[in-house]
């Protein structure tokens, strides 16, 4: 696979704490890269550094399709199709669901009016977000539908690389199945996906490769089935055997 998204020597420190250290890896076009690691291992920080929100990296370089993107503004990154969802339900709560999708469309593509509404409807159809929720305030939705809406707004921004941060957290089994199907659907549309998830069955089920992090560093990267049998990875998750 070609290096569609290439991360080289990415690092971020907060005082003495090295949140992400010398992180390097590549993701192929249309690939799903799963990212696992214990809490506090730097997974979400890695997403923060790629999107530069809320902070950029201290060091390292990022390339998208051969073009260096780590010096671009967040607005430019979004227009290039680097889109992210949050661990928590980061929506505009008092805006209606359709307004949440519309701001995403309007911001990224610059279209307004009926064309924006058409693209918003299209994003809802792709994800399967119920249109009868469109006029409800986003904050009034149950957690599962808020997560659906968050993915819909991400899709509405026409992503080339989608960074999904724990899309299945706080969900029950049937809802996790929906997340699995949605990820596969989006991937089939050619979207390259980086997926942070604690639910290993979901992560290994959809990922082409698995990246495991501990204390801000990469400790394993490779075929998902092989990586989860790696003693270093088992130790990182379960601790050293006595």
């Amino acid at each position, binding site marked *: 696979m070609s290096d569609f998204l290439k991360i080289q020597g990415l690092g971020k420190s907060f005082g003495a704490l090295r949140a992400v250290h010398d992180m390097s890896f590549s993701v192929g076009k249309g690939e799903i890269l799963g990212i696992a690691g214990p809490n506090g291992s730097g997974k979400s920080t890695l997403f923060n550094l790629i*999107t530069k929100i809320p902070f950029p990296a201290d060091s390292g370089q990022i390339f998208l399709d051969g073009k260096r993107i780590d010096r671009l503004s967040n607005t430019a990154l979004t227009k290039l199709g680097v889109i992210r969802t949050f661990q928590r339900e980061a929506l505009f709560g*008092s*805006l209606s669901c359709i307004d949440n999708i519309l*701001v995403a469309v309007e911001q990224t593509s610059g279209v307004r009016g009926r064309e924006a509404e058409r693209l918003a409807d299209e994003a809802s159809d792709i994800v399967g977000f119920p249109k009868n929720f469109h006029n409800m305030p986003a904050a009034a939705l149950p957690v599962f539908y808020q997560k659906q809406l968050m993915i819909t707004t991400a899709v509405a921004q026409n992503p080339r690389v989608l960074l999904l941060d724990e899309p299945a957290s706080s969900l029950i089994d049937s809802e996790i199945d929906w997340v699995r199907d949605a990820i596969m659907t989006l991937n089939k549309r050619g979207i390259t996906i980086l997926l942070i998830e604690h639910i290993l069955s979901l992560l290994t089920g959809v990922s082409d490769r698995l990246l495991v992090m501990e204390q801000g560093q990469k400790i394993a990267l490779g075929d998902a089935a092989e990586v989860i049998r790696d003693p270093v990875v088992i130790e990182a998750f379960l601790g050293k055997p006595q």
Partner: protein
Amino acid sequence: MELETLLYILVSGLVLGGLYALMAIGLSVVWTTIGVFNFAHGTFVALGAYIAWQVSSSLGGAPGFLLGAVIAPISLFIIGYALHYALIKPFERNPNIVLLSVITTLAAASIIESLIQLIWGPREKQIEAPVSGNLEVAGLSFSAQDILTFVVTLFILALLAWFLKRSGTGRAMRAAAQNREAAQLMGFNVTHLYALTIGIAAATAAIAGLFIGSIRFINPTFGVDPLMKSLIVVIFGGVAHFTSPILAAFIVGLIEAFSVYLFGLYWAPSILFGLMIIVLLIKPEGLFGFQRKTL
């Protein structure tokens, strides 16, 4: 009290309330979007009035007033937009931004006030009203200027509500007001949206200044009273919804009109503050507020 007197007081209260709403909505929109209190808002009203006076007095009559109504808000929009970069932007990452912006906006108020004095001098001025005389409605006689003020005020408030609710930029402003981080992640230029918010607030202040300046005398310190009234309205009504300070403004206007009639002009502020204290004791988040701020 006779019905006719009651109706006159009601109309007077509504006209006053409309002007207070126009002044307060800018303060409220800035607070709900950026999370800072703009203490320069009163001087925006004053500066808008002076610019309108300059334009209208050089042309005279209704055309002068009309040109002032165009030039003053546009000028204040540009000034407000630019001031965001000087007063708020440098401190947006500072955890003490609320306190720092109190200081910077108070400083700006003082500088603008001095500039007004320097440019236009200390003598009082009045903008020539575009209409004169009275309108007869159902046997009652109302000032044409009051009716014009009320109608234009309602139109501007409706236009602002439409802009925030229906336009793409308004939607983006509401989104940025609620979740700055998510908005940035979506690629919004949040700094531009915040500057736009201050610009729009300053433009509405200018329109309020234009109308106040046509019914009262203006002087360089004239911004103090509009700022005080806007603060009362925003605290009184809360900022839970776009309409919260507007409803509060009409209530404040009516209370003031009735207080003036029943107890005299000098008791009106005391009665207003007394009622505000009672409301805050019972509902600290304001009459129409929840314990959150949204746009």
